């Protein structure tokens, strides 16, 4: 790891003054589970590290009647174990409880999960050509790509979006509060937060290098919601495919309305699957309608040389996420 100068601000405003307008020389440190690995690989080589762990107030969780606000520094373990959040937002808390293992969940934070770098092994190998590290080409397109994107049309970099909390949060209509220079505050819907990068000056999200995510707010609307992941290992890894769904009603023979279906780990950003949502919107969720939604979810998929299998996984994951949310029998659990 390249050595650096360490900063430990105590307020969000002070932290922002320590950031720079361009990515690269200054990195923010929260749980460290992503940044330290990137530094050890020399993929990240910051000369300055700004720790967010001395800032009081980034770790609060407030659940109100109309919305819940979670500080960006709240750990994954706290999200997974929070009784009110579990009751209101199982799509979020189930995903949080499935991340890594206990150590990762005790260290990793909400903000870090949303802003983590992607898992492409070419990106994380300092010796491989990679567009995101200033290379001329993407090594994954013709290389080892079994875990990469399957929605690849118009993408020069085929990373798979890594955040498992984004999926549920987007389905639930959450927004992030962001603090920039001169105390400029903005709110961005997480549905519009993510970005497909193509070069070293860009990241997987639209946070500017001199901005700090301070919190995430989830509206409390009584939505039925759930998430489903397909995993190769039960722990210590990212899912291969993940789906989150949210809608009004949709249980006990009632029609589902306002359906949102979000896919992750299948494209450079989380995908809002509108055709899939239309397939079940204003309908009763059954095995048949959930199956139809799964089929609609993969319309337009263009898998790479090794990941055609993920298309089928998305179909099934959409179906199962809808069935879990609707309270239907989990036929896949023996």
């Amino acid at each position, binding site marked *: 790891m*390249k050595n*650096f100068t360490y900063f430990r601000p105590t307020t969000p405003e002070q932290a922002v003054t320590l950031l720079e307008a361009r990515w690269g020389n200054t990195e923010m440190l929260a749980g460290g589970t992503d940044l330290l690995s990137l530094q*050890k690989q020399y993929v990240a080589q910051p000369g300055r590290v700004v720790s967010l762990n001395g800032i009081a107030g980034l770790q609060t969780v407030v659940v109100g009647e109309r919305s819940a606000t979670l500080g960006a520094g709240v750990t994954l373990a706290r999200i997974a174990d929070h009784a009110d959040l579990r009751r209101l937002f199982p799509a979020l808390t189930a995903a949080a409880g499935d991340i*890594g293992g206990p150590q*990762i969940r*005790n*260290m990793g934070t909400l903000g870090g999960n949303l802003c983590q770098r992607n898992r492409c092994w070419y990106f994380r190998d300092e010796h491989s050509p990679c567009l995101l590290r200033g290379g001329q080409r993407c090594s994954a397109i013709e290389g080892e790509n079994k875990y990469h994107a399957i929605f690849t049309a118009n993408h020069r970099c085929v990373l798979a979006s890594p955040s498992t909390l984004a999926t549920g949060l987007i389905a639930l209509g959450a927004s992030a509060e962001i603090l920039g220079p001169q105390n400029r505050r903005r709110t961005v819907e997480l549905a519009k937060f993510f970005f497909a990068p193509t070069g070293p000056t860009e990241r997987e999200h639209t946070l500017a290098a001199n901005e700090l995510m301070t919190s995430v707010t989830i509206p409390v609307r009584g939505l039925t919601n759930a998430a489903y992941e397909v995993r190769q290992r039960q722990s210590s890894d990212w899912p291969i495919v993940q789906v989150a769904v949210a809608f009004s009603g949709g249980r006990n023979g009632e029609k589902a309305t306002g359906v949102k279906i979000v896919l992750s780990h299948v494209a450079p950003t989380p995908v809002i699957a509108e055709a899939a949502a239309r397939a079940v919107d204003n309908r009763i969720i059954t095995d048949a309608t959930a199956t139809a939604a799964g089929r609609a979810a993969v319309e337009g998929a263009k898998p790479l040389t090794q990941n055609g299998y993920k298309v089928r996984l998305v179909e099934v994951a959409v179906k199962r996420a809808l069935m879990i949310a609707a309270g239907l029998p989990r036929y896949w659990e023996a």
Partner: protein
Amino acid sequence: MHDHETLESGPSRRDFLQETGAVVAATALAGAATMESPAAELQPGTGGGIGPNAVKITLNVNGRDVQTSIEPRVTLLDALRNYLDVTGCKRVCDRATCGACTVMLDGKVVYACTVLAIEAQGRQIRTAESLYNDGKLDAVPAAFVRADAQQCGFCTPGFVVAMKAVLDANPQAAPAQVEKGLQGNICRCGTYEQMRDAIYALCNTKRGN
């Protein structure tokens, strides 16, 4: 180095595990290495930068405050092993995956390889060495010994600390809950079956098939 000395006396592996705890506990925290001098004092909250040269830090390791001098990039794992001679936590993957470096910070398990030592100040750091006190082995490592739940033993301190953390937080934990607490640890020798025996013994539960 302590491991080496103990091995030369030729004990069984079981004795070795028990004695290692004693030797380490006796000498681990005796000396704190200094890398560079003079070291700047760390003053959190000033907004000023610290490093990149070595800075003095104070860590509370197994109930004792110890001082050393490290660069900001030094991880808690490397500070414990290479600067403070607390070698129970092991460096294996060094990428927050295998769990051999597991320690408790304020009672919660973390990967010491992925925490900066400078950030562990003011927190209670607890390592496998804390499970051997006054000649008495804690119930968790003792259960490992009885169940022969280790082969090469390199992952064992991490597993023991992770298991201890679950049982400290919930002494009534069921075997399945203890196992969930070990999700972040890997044993390359595959001694999981014996570890399961140890877990069931600790939970006073008879193991079925």
